[in-house]
């Protein structure tokens, strides 16, 4: 049971890498938009529109990872955030700049303030995954001791493994984004954009693959324990899956099977996250296993219950979102639905509503003001809310005369 929340965290981290990582990558491609055959504007608009409906949901995976981590493994969380405060802060600033520039950009169809905002968006899209990658590198290479800021504030994230993971985070994001954007362009029938992103996907895939494999040499030197884990048992299996899925993706993209490439690219990246987990298991931080880091039983039960119940709501919602999104139901386009509304129904019963508002108001005031906290007071507050809703109904529905 002590490990189940860690599984949630890893699943969340994998989802964040695969989904939000691609959004970061899309930001990177807006910076390199001039290189393709499609116009710079067309490329940027394509990248931006493709993440429009989903980027908030993708981003929430990070919040999910944080909250499960601090609830289930509080001591480890406090140690990580205090020692790795600098890269986490850089990531935080990157997230603000990125979100703000995205929200701003969406409102500016043709304006002179556009370029700097787009560049800000692109730069923060590189900075944020890099900083988060260095955090993972710091944890994976065992540089975060237990305690309040007990580790080195700089070398805990400015070290070969961290920089490797940071670069890998940027590269895999770019790769995922290129694959997804090629698939979106294919669906929209935008041939030139599709060709551009196909080329980009192939190039970025090769880069990310080379970086990941070459990185093993760095890890061997810098973090032997991690290397040991990645080359044996479950870790090695995951690395193998990642390589196989990566190669498969290149082949699928080459042959223009973008739908399948989307899935295999995601698998290649998710397998890296899983490989890291296998390599570290059961160590969380130096001298702290997952079991030692775990909170008390009642907390773990509560977290697992919350996640299980939450998943019942979340999974169908996510499936709905991505089905609508991938089938183009959320694409910017002209109307496809007939907006003939229901026929107007005339005549409203205003008097009973006014009487209801009056009665609940008097009852609510009496109960709330005159009773001590308890069920009567709660009933009073409920009456006040009912009175407010009824009054709103009276005040907001009638056509206001001048």
């Amino acid at each position, binding site marked *: 049971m002590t490990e189940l929340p860690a599984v949630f965290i890893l699943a969340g981290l994998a989802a964040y890498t695969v989904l939000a990582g691609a959004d970061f990558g899309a930001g990177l491609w807006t910076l390199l938009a001039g290189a393709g055959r499609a116009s710079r504007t067309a490329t940027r608009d394509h990248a931006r529109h493709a993440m429009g*409906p*989903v980027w*908030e*949901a993708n981003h*929430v995976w990070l919040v*999910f990872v*944080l*909250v*499960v981590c*601090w*609830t289930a493994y509080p*001591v480890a*969380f*406090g140690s*990580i955030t*205090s020692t790795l*405060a600098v890269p*986490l*802060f850089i*990531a*935080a600033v990157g*997230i*603000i700049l990125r*979100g*703000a520039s995205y*929200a*701003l950009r969406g*409102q500016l169809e043709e304006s002179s303030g556009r370029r700097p905002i787009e560049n800000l968006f692109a730069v923060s899209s590189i900075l944020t995954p890099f900083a988060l990658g260095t955090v993972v590198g710091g944890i994976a290479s065992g540089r975060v001791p237990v305690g309040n*800021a007990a580790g080195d*504030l700089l070398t805990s994230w400015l070290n070969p493994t961290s920089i490797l993971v940071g670069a890998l985070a940027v590269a895999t994001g770019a790769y995922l984004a290129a694959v997804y954007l090629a698939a979106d362009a294919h669906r929209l029938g935008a041939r030139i954009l599709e060709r551009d992103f196909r080329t980009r996907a192939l190039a970025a895939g090769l880069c990310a693959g080379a970086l990941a494999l070459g990185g093993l040499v760095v890890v061997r030197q810098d973090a032997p324990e991690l290397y040991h884990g990645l080359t044996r048992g479950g870790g090695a299996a995951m690395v193998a899956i990642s390589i196989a899925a990566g190669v498969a993706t290149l082949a699928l993209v080459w042959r223009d099977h973008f739908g399948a490439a989307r899935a295999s690219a995601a698998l290649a990246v998710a397998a890296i996250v899983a490989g890291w987990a296998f390599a570290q298991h059961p160590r969380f931080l130096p001298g702290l296993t997952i079991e030692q880091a775990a*909170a*008390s039983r*009642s*907390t773990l039960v509560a*977290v697992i219950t919350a996640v299980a119940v*939450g998943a019942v*709501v979340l999974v169908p*919602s*996510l499936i709905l*979102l991505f089905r*609508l999104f991938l089938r183009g*139901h*959320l694409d910017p386009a*002209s109307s496809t*639905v007939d907006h003939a*509304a*229901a026929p*107007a129904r005339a005549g409203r019963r205003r008097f009973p509503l006014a009487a209801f508002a009056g009665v609940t108001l008097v009852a*609510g005031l009496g109960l*709330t003001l005159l009773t*001590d*906290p308890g069920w009567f007071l709660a009933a009073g507050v409920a009456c*006040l809310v009912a*009175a*407010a809703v009824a*009054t*709103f109904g009276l*005040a*907001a529905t009638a056509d206001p005369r*001048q």
Partner: protein
Amino acid sequence: MSGADRGGGSDVIEDYLLEARQMQALSLAVHIPLVCFGIALPALVLFCEWRYLRTGDRLYRALARRWSKVMLALFAVGVVTGTILSFELGLLWPEFMARFANVFGLGFTLEGFSFFVEAIFIGIYVYGWDRLSPRLHFLSGVPIALAGVAGSLFVISVNGWMNRPGGFTLRDGRAVAEDPWKALFGNSYLWHEFVHMYFAGYIVTGFLLATPYAWGYLRGRRDRYHRTALAVALSAAAVAAPLQVVIGDWAAREVAHHQPVKLAAMEGLAQTRSGAPVHVLGWYDGHEVEYGIAIPKLLSLLAHHDPDATIQGLDAVAVDDQPPVNVVRYAFQTMVGIGVLLALISLVYLYVRLRRHRLPRSSWFYRAVVVAGPLSVVALIAGWITTEVGRQPWIVYGVMRTSEAVTGASGIPVGYATLVTVYIGLAAGVGWLLHRFSRVPLEADWDD
């Protein structure tokens, strides 16, 4: 911290602690107004869409559509400022998280899920205007409204717990949770905080939404679209603002009962006494309120509904355990002062709207509404300052001091300066965005 080790070194820590607190306060102050929109705006957008579906009046569709774009932009900013807050909990208060997150963390886990639901359906709703059938589109908005309310409930449950902690035992200074559900949701402190914030959500959203339309009204834009927008926004704020006074009375009684030191700081009551007065304005000099206008017995009346009730003074606890009185006092008075003003504006509006079936005609009314939007935000922040600074010097009330929770990492000043710069840029950006937005011609939302 005992008196003995308060040397030069601990002064540095105190400065540093203050900066960490200010940094957290700044981030909260940026995020909380956005939470108000998360609570109230989806309901108002859905109300407009429901009116459209019922009456077929396309004006309401245009209104819902336009406000849904504002909702999305504000949600996007809220997502990032909310993420910053969760980062800061770890970055600034690692000891607090390490020792107590196993008790209250559940609230944030639940909030994470409602955040998810909100993010998913806001994407479907705002991007689905032209693609989904009207009924399905309306239904896709309902989870946004529910998740906005649930999310704020979960976060406030954590704040309620910090103010009235329970549900754990201490082992080596670390909490061991007994029942996190009961600790968060069986806590009576949650409910008045939540209801108070829920009403505040409607007040802030309603008045802020009305502000640009009131400005337009003063400049002659008085067509049916503008009048309807004003009526919906002002009605939302106006039904909440007068009742907030009653909810506030409930909150004050809870504070008087569970956190008497906070109540004493809100008034600047140095000594325990019966028939305690309230002083309006003035300055607390460490012993009494100077230059204030005293209203006899009012504090006893408000706190216990009895003019002769005994109220505990600040002297009941050591000076080290007292919050900064003048900050709490002025924040409280600001909130109450603005709250009363907003309630009066609301009553004028409701009277004219319900008795005369029209909007007020006086220019002064609309000038007041233009000011009421920003003022409602000031009151909101002042209210949170009252409860959070009033909680000091504790981060977990009566259990852990804020100074014990702060990070050991250096560099807080650099982080603070960076964050201030970024947030000033963000504020300018959002202001500019809303300004531009109000200039986009209406046709964009009317018939596409």
